[in-house]
């Protein structure tokens, strides 16, 4: 396999592995928690790297993912103490863990040589450097198969727990009434996100991996009314963004993840703009049809997708009740537990 093909394939697989759980992250309002996880895994990676000397080691990935889970659990504990307000609990723990990781790196802990630039935004080309050779034939970067494994685990998790994830995401209290162990599911899901973040660290670094997780899902959320449609669109945006971002970074000679983050941003703004425009055009046509005494005709693709909207409606209801309580919208999923 040629180097450029292998590396771009790696970009696509990494983007997909991050973006699919991202759909649930966005709907569960955990976006900034992923920012915390991505920072907090750093000390885990540094310590793990000192022992395994291999960023792709499964031990390192699981160990560092536990450090990421620490942020989730600490966040929940800090909220439960009732001594802190707003979104402050999310912003208290991860800087300290990240700072500890940076200090470990600069003190040359066990001779770990990680460049700070790589820590922040990763280096896809370096990650793709080690090729997997079978019978003397290169079959792509070794790291590609690590990310492929993570992608398969993510898809399997989402496929197996799809109904449960759906109901806990949209109506957590209803799920609890049904006797579901919502908290366990949430912890397991966040652990999976944490594993994905650690695995993608090599390619996207601690700071921009959140873009890979959140932005394709957010873009898909803009124009979808159903979870299944949203998941498909998320995957589509992730693939397009990965290829375009890879190309931008190649032309500008910059980090791939930086190119991807910027392109994802443009894609989000473009989709939001087109969506607004389409709504305006449709409203105008409907008004025209009404004044002409005709029934509103074809509503376009969104009209076809719009029928079963009860899932989002339930979430909107939950949001409104949260607002009535005066609690911050970002915190009320946790508060509801």
């Amino acid at each position, binding site marked *: 396999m040629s180097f450029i093909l292998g590396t771009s394939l790696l970009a696509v697989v990494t983007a997909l592995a991050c973006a699919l759980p991202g759909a649930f992250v966005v709907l569960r309002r955990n976006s900034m928690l992923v920012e915390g996880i991505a920072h907090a895994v750093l000390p885990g990676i540094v310590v793990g790297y000192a022992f395994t000397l291999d960023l792709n080691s499964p031990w390192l990935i699981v160990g560092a993912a536990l450090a990421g889970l620490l942020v989730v659990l600490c966040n929940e504990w800090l909220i439960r103490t009732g001594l802190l307000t707003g979104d402050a609990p999310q912003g208290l723990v991860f800087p300290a863990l990240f700072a500890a990781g940076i200090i470990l790196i600069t003190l040359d802990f066990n001779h770990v040589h990680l460049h700070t630039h790589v820590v922040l935004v990763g280096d896809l080309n370096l990650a793709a450097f080690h090729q997997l050779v079978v019978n003397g034939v290169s079959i792509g970067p070794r790291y590609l198969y690590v990310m492929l494994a993570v992608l398969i685990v993510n898809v399997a998790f989402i496929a197996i727990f799809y109904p449960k994830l759906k109901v806990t995401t949209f109506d957590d209290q209803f799920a609890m009434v049904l006797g579901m162990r919502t908290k366990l599911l949430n912890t397991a899901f966040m652990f999976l996100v944490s594993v994905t973040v650690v695995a993608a660290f090599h390619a996207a670094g601690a700071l921009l991996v959140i873009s890979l997780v959140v932005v394709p899902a957010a873009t898909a959320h803009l124009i979808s009314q159903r979870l299944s449609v949203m998941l498909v669109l998320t995957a589509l945006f992730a693939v397009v963004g990965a290829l375009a971002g890879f190309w931008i970074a190649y032309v500008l000679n910059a980090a791939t993840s930086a190119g991807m983050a910027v392109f994802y941003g443009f894609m989000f703004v473009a989709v939001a703009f087109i969506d607004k425009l389409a709504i305006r055009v449709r409203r105008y046509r409907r008004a025209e049809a009404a004044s002409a005494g005709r029934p509103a005709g074809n509503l376009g693709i969104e009209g076809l997708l719009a029928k079963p909207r009860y899932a989002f409606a339930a979430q909107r209801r939950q949001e409104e009740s949260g607002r009535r309580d005066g609690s911050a919208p970002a*915190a009320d999923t946790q508060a509801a537990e």
Partner: protein
Amino acid sequence: MVDPIEFFGNHTFRMVFFGTTVIGLVAGALGSFAYLRKQSLISDVIAHSALPGALLAFLTAVVVLGVSGRNMLGLIVGAVTTGTLAALFANSIAARTKIRIDTAMAISLTVFFGAGMIVLRIIANGPFPGKGGIEDYLFGNASVITIADLATSTAVGALALILMLVFWKEFTLRTFDPVHSTVLGFRASVIDTLMFTTIVIAIVIGVQAVGVVLMIAVVVTPPAAARQWTSTLPGMVALSGAFGAIGSGVGAYLSIAVGNIPTGPVIVLTLFVIFLVSLLASPRRSVITTTLRRARARESLRRELLTETTDR
């Protein structure tokens, strides 16, 4: 180890100490308002998004104006511009689409920071004078603070604090009862813009010494710690500023005394220790006090019930 007398005898060390103390004081005091308005995480967006602004200011100074790129005022202007743009971008996404504020913040943060990393690479690859150590904006390097830098950041920080004192009444009302403040005729948008500007200023003056990645801790941690000791706004702002100043000063001292560690991370860890002590053991509201109080209440209830039963 560097002992204190030697520390304060050294010009560079003095600059580091006073520079970081000023940053901690301003960020801690103004962070209280972000904390009380339950918008602590927006400071993370502003801090990360300060990177492209600071770097573009460097490029403008070097390429267009032909002067030294390391200019504190230019850095502040550039960083305030992009930091404010990023915060407005996040808020407008949340207001105009069905995307909620946490995701909107994540989108804004990554776009601006990604752009910053691309500009950083362009600077690193190009022939720009004075580009050495430009990567210090990421994790901060307090040892490059000059007297002029200290003077600029003190002046700008003082301006932010003066704004806070002048509009104290408006800020307080808007923080605790936004509806009432609107009813009384205060323009919400004007007060919000003012309050926001002071917070952005508090964040960007720390970019050089603490770095864009960890500046959130200097804004979020001191108020969270101070809140455990006091229940009045003046007390909280003062204590939070003091915690910020002490944590930053001690952190800067430790980073130099131990040697060869970037200043930002040590400051963050020092502040985190202050926060942990406050959360666990402050006399009025803390984890330990609450646990003790609950145990005592349970014990007294048990005794009361026992006496009732024996009386009968």
